[in-house]
């Protein structure tokens, strides 16, 4: 009988459970058992009834992992950078992981609030953050430890000050929007009475009262809520290129000042309502845009976890955890199993298996010995090393590539850039037109001429034009996000429509990078069946950290095998007193022709080889459908891989690709891509490792897969959020949809402006109608862009 762990939902271990009153709750591991006991002890069992998703299993048996997670919270100088001092106590914001539903927030808040010294705890599910206010220095470590015991990951956030700034900016804009909205409604209410002529011929006192109230309401709306427009206009003027904000600011100041002048000089009309409405609709568009941008930005932030914050440094008085940023060239560092190198270094002592998939694309970890170099970003899968740093963290290869990528990412999409060039001209033209209108109507009296000029300024407000491109693009970004594609560079999404070809990487991109036993052969007859030998191999490899070991998860481990032990290369264990061993096959492959470049392992009983195994990774199931769909777009499909000819040509044939090249270095991939781009036109690169990064950076459109290394993700303009390639197939259609949306929006904005300006110049549009028309036009553009955000691919 199998039962599920009451904490995390994994299959439970047979003899492990927690006794709670009359209930026996099954558990899968001591970590989950501990977490359940802790939840019960704290009286928080309610959590299990309220949660909508299972929890993550804590790994309490791994003392190293625990030490690494908790160490940062014991170093006051490191925490000081993240803390702020408030009247209630010190305030610290931490990043959480493993939160699955609102019940987690409740559990965290309840279980940490009674730790001595904690003033308050607040969690934010959408930002995955915990805000802790405390008075005693030992509190952060205690809170982190309790969270760790409950199975949540806790770490210091990447850029605390940037995040705080972002939050303040969001709050301020929301406040402005709310004020403008309420103010606009109030101002319109009072103006309606004036427009309807309720006080014509009546008592002038009421007329004055209503105007005064309009002034009282419109003033904060214009000068507080509308402040960003004045700021923007001033910035544009100082930079010598007047932007969209200048006519807006001018219209606002004219509408407000003109109304005031009309009141003082006994003019007929006031425009406080138009000004307030104008501010509100403009802020609404701005707020919608900001939200969309931040949503994409937040997803970026979560994926930006590259290098460890802390490392153990050896000093005269022993080992200390220090901030990775403070490591200097020449420092001696100790790294344990599972840790990631924070800096480039040379091994001084110890042997270990180092996975540098992030850097080299090589999926198999390499054995490393004293004298070898290791690079930041590589992870130590097995062993313990003493290394000497060769450069500070900021100068590591990884950090330099990251910088390069960050620069490439700050680009502006070409269409937006063109628009920015046109904007100042447009602004100047609008103001000229307003001046001409004033001149045309001047004979009819300055008040009327002023009103018509104001209408021109308001009605031609170029917002619809300014919003047409960015809103359509950001609609496209959220549609892409829903289809599992995160767009880091909007320009690349638009560039998809012009592509002529696509270049794929092999391992981890077209193939899953997950190994499988494709063939096995018994070598000498020891009276074992194939199934028995495979289950012995599975038992040996069960706890091995090597990616090849995952190939054996498909088999049931033999229960008779005891004390399996991870070796330098392979593993060994005892079964009925006999030593079994599995490791790389040192002999020539007898079936090379049939198995191509498959990786081989040999299983020994004592000294006798028993089973030879061939392991290989498989093409992703959807790879053929995706390459076919991209082929239907008229793109040439190619494969470039660092692997040998056999495996590469076979995959290319299976997926019916147009061309392939084997044994490619990162530089060669880039050169080939540049060649193709020069010969055929823009190319797309799809890859997953750092070895693809040069080609990714050189390509017109670059895509990183979901399990790509952090750096490949940084190098790519787009990346897939879910494992697999499926979203790629819908990318061309989405890009076309975004382009069509942009064209529609631009066409509408132009048509509107060309109709509205002559009408306003002729004096046929009163200011309130101008504000309405302008807002309606912006709203139409916004709604059309949000239609793009709801786009669905035909296949899904």
């Amino acid at each position: 009988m199998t039962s599920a762990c009451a904490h995390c939902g994994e299959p439970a271990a047979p003899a492990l459970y927690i006794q709670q009153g009359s209930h026996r709750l099954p558990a899968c591991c001591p970590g989950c058992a501990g977490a359940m006991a802790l939840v019960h002890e704290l009286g928080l069992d309610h959590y299990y009834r309220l949660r909508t998703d299972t929890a993550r299993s804590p790994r309490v048996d791994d003392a190293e992992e625990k030490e690494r997670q908790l160490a940062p919270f014991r170093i006051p100088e490191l925490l000081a950078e993240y803390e702020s001092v408030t009247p209630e106590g010190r305030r610290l914001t931490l990043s959480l992981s493993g939160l699955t539903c609102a019940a987690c927030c409740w559990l965290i808040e309840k279980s940490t609030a009674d730790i001595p010294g904690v003033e308050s705890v607040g969690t934010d599910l959408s930002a995955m953050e915990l805000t802790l206010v405390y008075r005693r220095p030992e509190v952060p470590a205690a809170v982190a430890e309790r969270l760790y015991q409950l199975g949540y990951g806790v770490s210091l956030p990447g850029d605390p000050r940037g995040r705080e700034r972002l939050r303040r900016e969001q709050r301020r804009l929301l406040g402005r929007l709310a004020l403008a909205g309420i103010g606009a409604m109030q101002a319109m209410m009072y103006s309606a009475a004036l427009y309807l002529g309720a006080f014509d011929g009546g008592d002038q006192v009421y007329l004055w009262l209503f105007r005064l109230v309009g002034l009282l309401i419109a003033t904060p709306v214009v000068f507080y809520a509308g402040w960003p427009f004045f700021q923007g206009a001033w910035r544009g003027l100082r930079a010598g290129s007047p932007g969209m904000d200048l006519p807006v600011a001018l219209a606002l100041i004219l509408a407000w000042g003109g109304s005031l002048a009309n009141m003082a000089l006994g003019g007929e009309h006031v425009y406080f309502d138009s000004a307030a409405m104008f501010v509100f609709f403009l802020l609404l568009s701005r707020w919608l845009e900001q939200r969309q941008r931040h949503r994409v930005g937040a997803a970026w932030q979560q994926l930006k976890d590259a290098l460890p914050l802390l490392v153990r440094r050896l000093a005269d008085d022993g080992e200390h955890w220090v901030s990775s940023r403070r490591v200097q060239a020449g420092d001696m560092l100790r790294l344990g199993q599972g840790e990631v190198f924070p800096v480039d270094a040379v091994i001084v002592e110890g042997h270990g298996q180092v996975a540098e998939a992030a850097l080299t694309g090589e999926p198999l970890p390499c054995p490393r010995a004293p004298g070898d170099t290791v690079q930041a970003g590589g992870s130590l899968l097995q062993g313990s090393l003493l290394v000497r740093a060769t450069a500070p963290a900021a100068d590591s290869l990884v950090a330099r590539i990251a910088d390069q990528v960050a620069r490439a990412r700050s680009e502006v999409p070409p269409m937006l850039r063109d628009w920015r060039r046109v904007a100042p001209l447009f602004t100047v033209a609008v103001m000229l037109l307003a001046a001409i209108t004033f001149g045309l109507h001047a004979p009819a009296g300055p008040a009327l001429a002023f009103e018509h000029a104001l209408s021109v300024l308001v009605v031609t407000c170029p917002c619809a034009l300014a919003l047409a491109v960015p809103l359509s693009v950001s609609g496209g970004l959220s549609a892409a996000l829903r289809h599992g594609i995160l767009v880091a560079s909007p320009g690349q999404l638009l560039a998809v429509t012009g592509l002529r070809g696509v270049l794929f990487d092999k391992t981890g991109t077209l193939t899953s990078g997950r190994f499988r036993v494709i063939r096995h052969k018994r070598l000498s007859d020891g009276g074992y069946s194939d199934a028995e030998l495979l289950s012995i191999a599975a038992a040996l490899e069960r706890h091995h950290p090597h990616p090849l070991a995952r190939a054996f998860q498909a088999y049931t481990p033999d229960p008779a095998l005891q004390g399996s032990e991870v070796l330098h290369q392979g593993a060994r264990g005892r079964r009925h007193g006999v030593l079994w061993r599995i490791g790389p096959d040192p002999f020539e492959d007898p079936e090379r022709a049939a198995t191509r470049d498959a990786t081989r392992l040999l299983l020994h009983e004592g000294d006798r080889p028993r089973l030879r195994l061939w392991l290989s990774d498989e093409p992703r199931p959807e790879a053929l459908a995706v390459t076919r769909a991209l082929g239907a777009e008229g793109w040439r499909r190619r494969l470039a891989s660092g692997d040998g000819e056999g495996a590469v040509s076979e995959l290319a044939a299976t997926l019916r690709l147009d061309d392939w090249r084997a044994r490619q270095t990162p530089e060669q991939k880039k050169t080939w891509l540049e060649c193709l781009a020069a010969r055929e036109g823009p190319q797309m690169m799809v890859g997953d490792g750092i070895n693809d990064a040069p080609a990714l950076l050189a390509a017109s459109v670059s895509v990183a897969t979901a399990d790509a290394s952090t750096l490949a993700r940084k190098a790519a303009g787009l990346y897939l959020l879910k494992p697999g390639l499926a979203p790629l197939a819908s990318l061309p259609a989405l890009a076309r949809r975004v382009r069509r949306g942009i064209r529609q929006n631009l066409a509408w904005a132009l048509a509107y402006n060309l109709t509205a300006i002559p009408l306003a110049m002729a004096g046929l549009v009163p200011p309130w109608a101008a504000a309405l028309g302008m807002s309606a036009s912006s709203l139409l553009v916004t709604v059309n862009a949000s239609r793009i955000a709801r786009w669905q691919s035909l296949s899904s």
Partner: protein
Amino acid sequence: MAIIILLIPLALVFLGLALWALFWAINRGQFEDLEHQAWRVVFEDRDRD
């Protein structure tokens, strides 16, 4: 009609109060996590057991 002279300033006072409350809520971060806070009411407060 004269009552308007009294009612309109009164309406303005209410408007001011509403805006003050709104800004108070925004600055306390009440509009930031709309998902988790909505669940709070479902969770029992252990202290009252």
